[in-house]
């Protein structure tokens, strides 16, 4: 009896998945349909089940299966702070189609800062980007960053090193004095620290910041972008004309203003989150062409967008070529910022 009720419940739960409208298949390059049909593709998520990357991977999987005729599995590998997932994909044999979904900036940082991994950015190829979003500062509602005398400010962060680009560089550009309190366990802990009044703000991806703002006790104070954000039109942005840095440096000599803007632009490049899909560069070119086509089609599919949005995740799909360019820009920005980041780290370490 219990089994029957259980089965009925499962059917009830699964029913919506089987009634989606039937659409024509996306066009794939010649030979790809046969080449990829029945192949197994693994989306490797560097976190435990749940959370942004997992939601994107599980929303994308059905579309990849429908378009490419492949069988897709989502594998969660949170070990080693995400490095296990990175190595799993980098070391995949050429006939094993494993795809990592992670933040482009985190991939670059892990590969450049940990030579013991034995991998370089050249060992990976970009297949596309699921979403790009700027970083934002979230804090107490009465805090006004347009005021040059606001501060000294205290930021709640997980670690100093992870927030040099998101807090250190922007603070250097605006001229605000910021102290970091490092060691908070996660977003929830950091928001609670602001609510308790221990700290003034924390830095999060815009989507997370918006969700925190909905609880009514926190405010998005600054978007780390170089122009106004359409979803947050009243919130100051960091770099470029009309931005916070331009406002706060208005009275300074031109050379110094330009220098601050350069730092602000670098902060925007480093901090913007790009949820990228990458596979091993060892995959043969003919297969890579097919994978690119499948991912390009799946990323722009309305079903993927709807599934992700229904779970509170926005989609800003970007194809393989552009994703590769964004990854290289990230790499270049990271190398360019290295000396500045060292300087910021020295100032901010508790």
């Amino acid at each position, binding site marked *: 009896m219990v089994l029957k009720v*259980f089965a009925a419940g499962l059917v009830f739960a*699964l029913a919506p998945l089987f009634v989606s409208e039937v659409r024509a298949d996306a066009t794939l390059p010649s030979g790809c349909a046969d080449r990829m049909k029945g192949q197994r593709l693994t989306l*490797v998520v560097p976190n435990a089940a749940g959370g942004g990357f997992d939601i994107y991977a599980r929303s994308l999987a059905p579309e990849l299966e429908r378009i490419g005729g492949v069988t897709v599995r989502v594998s969660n590998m949170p*070990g*080693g702070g995400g*490095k296990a997932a990175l190595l799993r994909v980098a070391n995949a044999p050429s006939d094993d189609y494993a795809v990592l979904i992670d933040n482009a900036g985190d991939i670059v940082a892990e590969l450049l800062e940990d030579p013991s991994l034995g991998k370089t950015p050249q060992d990976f190829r970009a297949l596309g980007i699921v979403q790009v979003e700027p970083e934002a500062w979230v804090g107490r509602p009465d805090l006004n960053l347009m005021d040059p005398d606001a501060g000294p400010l205290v930021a709640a962060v997980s670690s100093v090193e992870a927030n040099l680009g998101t807090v250190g560089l922007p603070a250097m550009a605006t001229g605000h004095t910021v102290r970091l309190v490092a*060691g908070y366990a996660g977003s*929830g802990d950091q928001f609670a620290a602001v609510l308790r009044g221990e700290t003034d703000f924390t830095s999060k991806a815009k989507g997370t910041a918006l969700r925190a703002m909905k609880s009514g006790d926190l405010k998005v104070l600054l978007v780390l972008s170089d122009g106004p954000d359409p979803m947050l039109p009243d919130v100051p942005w960091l770099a470029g004309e009309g931005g916070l840095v331009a406002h706060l440096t208005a009275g300074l000599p031109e050379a110094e203003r330009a220098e601050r803007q350069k730092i602000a632009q670098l902060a925007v490049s480093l901090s913007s989150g790009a949820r990228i899909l990458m596979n091993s560069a060892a995959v043969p070119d003919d297969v890579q062409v097919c994978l690119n086509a499948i991912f390009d089609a799946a990323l722009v599919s309305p079903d993927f967008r709807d599934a992700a949005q229904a779970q509170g995740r926005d989609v800003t799909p970007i194809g393989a070529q552009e994703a590769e360019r964004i990854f290289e820009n990230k790499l270049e920005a990271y190398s360019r910022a290295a000396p500045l980041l060292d300087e910021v780290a020295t100032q901010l370490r508790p």
Partner: protein
Amino acid sequence: MPDTITALGIGLQNVFSWPNVLIPVLGTVLAMTVSFLPGIGAASLAAVMVVLTLHWEPVQVLLLFGALTGGATFMGSVTAILFGIPGNAASSVTLLDGHPMAHAGRPRTALAAAATASALGSVFGVVVLILLLPAIRPLLLQIGPLERAALAVWGLATIIAVLNGRPLKAFAATGLGLLLAMVGSDPTTSQPRWTFGRFEISDGLAQGAMLLGFFTLSEVLSWRKCHDLKAVPRHAAPDDTTRGGVLGVLKERALVLRASLIGLLVGIIPGVGGTVAGFVAYGQTVQTARGDRSGFGKGDIRGVIGPEAAVDAKDGGSLLPVLALGVPGSEGGVFLLTVLAIHGFVPGSAMLGADLPFTFTLIFALLASNLLTSALGLALVPGLSRLTRLPIDRIALPVIVVGLVTVVQIDGLVSDLFVAVGFAALGYAFRRLDWPRVPFVIAFVLGPSLESNLALVCQLHAVDRLDLGSRPLAWVIIALTLLSVVWMVTRPRHGASEVQRASIADRGVTILLGCGVALFAGIALTGGRAYSGYALGVCFVTLGTFAALALAQAFAPSLAGGSGKERPFLPASHRLPLLLVAIAPGLTLLFGLPLACGGLVLFWMLPSLRQGNALRRLALVVAAALVTVVVVTLYLDRVAVLDLPAPIVPVLPA
């Protein structure tokens, strides 16, 4: 805005109306079933259900997720009691006394006590949750790093209660637990420390691997037809009844209340979790127990009641930060937050105001699920308790295989097998040499929370953001800690005095562990920024304790005590299991986990060829090994969806 009573009524109606009531029932059964599978936690189930319920009505989704939160915990305790395998980290504390009870022929009593304590803890948690709702926001904002650090210190102070006349060993074990909990990276600087260049342990030694190795694998090693088994009764003890377990809990009402309060408090604190709730409650249970406390760790029913009540009371508490502030306090909280967002609920003022009926729907679904889990648990007690009558050496092999698969599955790292095997060896030594295991585990579990929150307190003080005068809750916890320490120190103590005798093996293990601590100290001294004052302090105090212990043992008389014979540290019957478990990680790296498990089965069963028809037995052994390979492969591939790195010698097709 509907008033609270109306909202309560709507919440009750939502849960208990037809056919809505089916949803919490289904959710509970689903959570219980899944939590019985090795390594598949509530998080994996919740991830799948978030997607499957996208098109459900909001009330139905709240009913389901309330049930999933409540249904996952108890079944973990069942496996912990019966087989010594904690189904989840929080239930590992239950095995400390639950498993010895089952071993002593009292599985029914242990299971019934666990189910009853869970139910009472859960009811307590939910009732207090409802009462606290109006005042919850200011209360939550009182709990910061200072309070969490104080709570960790309180938990560590309970170690004094389990000294049992071996203070030096207990302090050494505590230091070792704190030290190993620091492996990974500094919580403030993120600099790696004591990782020996291995990225796999950059997040620390996996807690799941530690618990499975230290408790489960170390115990199973001694199950294989060894002399210890002769003492294990195949039949239930005469006083082993479900009624006995239920009455045992009802007799300990004050204990249930105390433990539930601890669980609730820990649940409210974001990021602390059920494992801490269980261990802190266990320490308090031992500390405040009346009468003889020497039975703790050997099958005292109070050691089951306290943690079970705390772990289930925690469920109610963990909902509070999510509902009131939108701050997830646990993995389950993250999913709940996602689900609330998907279905248009806004945590904070709305959930405590206009959406209060929905809040009560969630709370009552949780309560219904917890009660249903316990009721099902009680109903299943007779059947489940029969499992312990299976020949124990036949259970040992599946337990080892399941244990290895679980360890790998938690983080997707084969290297965690080495961690588990290392802790299995340590647990085995502790068990054989009668070192206290509880202080070690409490220190390991509470260590990270203690360190990171102390670091936060120091930083907040440095930036002038910590007003000690405005933290009354912290002072209450500190006062409780001091009171309990004073009370324990001044109480007359039972049990043997420190180190009357020491075996050669005991002395050897002390020196070996001491050398390990000295190595850690050397690395810390030359390691720079990664090693904070706290890390250095723990390191050198532990080193000093080991030196004192070694000295005490050097001057102690031999264990032989005149008989001229010592109990062997490693009996012949333990050697093969120990060897097989020790080589399992290497075999996994070489040939993959399925073949390693198959090989383990093969070598474990080979000695049985000497009995009866060798050819027939050989066929059986090979068949068992092949079945293991197939089952593990299918499980990893289809159920766990675990994508492990290719083995060095790829024998099986990818």
